[in-house]
């Protein structure tokens, strides 16, 4: 099945600093999804990217899909303590409606 590599695994930032997590694949992806999991919570769907070079924004969050559709990134501008959690990317894994999740990036924001 499709594998996606996600880096970094952990990131500590000072409140107000920016944060970026990356998701990479060796093969072309049909789409990429991003999820957020708060500590003690469950993953929550954030967004899906489908088109080559696509950029979508949600307030301070910017999601990008690479031109070759082999990588994606999530960038948070001016982090806040509410951004704490683990961010996962997920890509279609060959089976209909099956996805493979990246290992996740755990973000800690220091007040």
């Amino acid at each position: 099945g499709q594998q996606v590599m996600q880096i970094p695994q952990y990131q500590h930032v000072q409140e107000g600093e920016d944060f970026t997590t990356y998701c990479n694949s060796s093969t072309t992806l049909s789409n990429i999804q991003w999820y957020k999991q708060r500590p003690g919570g469950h993953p929550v769907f954030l967004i899906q990217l489908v088109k080559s070079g696509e950029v979508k924004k949600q307030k301070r969050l910017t999601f990008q899909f690479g031109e070759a559709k082999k990588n994606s990134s999530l960038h948070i501008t001016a982090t806040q303590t509410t951004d704490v959690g683990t961010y996962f990317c997920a890509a279609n894994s060959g089976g209909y409606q099956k996805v493979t999740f990246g290992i996740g990036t755990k973000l800690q924001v220091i007040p």
Partner: protein
Amino acid sequence: DAGITQSPRHKVTETGTPVTLRCHQTENHRYMYWYRQDPGHGLRLIHYSYGVKDTDKGEVSDGYSVSRSKTEDFLLTLESATSSQTSVYFCAISEIGSNQPQHFGDGTRLSIL
């Protein structure tokens, strides 16, 4: 949040005992999934279902079985629990159609002693 209920929310049991986890949805979504989440591994798919009595294996299916006799219920069974199955288990659902997002339940924390 999507209408997904997992039960029990927490369970502690002994090695060798059978364990069944239940996922109940009120959304009438066709697809249902069971994942386990472990530190350093992210979310890994155990089994999934694409309809009543239609199920298939995921990447970590050994030691697990599933059943789906009704659209709303998806059961995960550990026939003889082992300590390596200590984990947090999440159920997810999604609508039919390509690239549909998944919606997760609150999870079950299972400890096998």
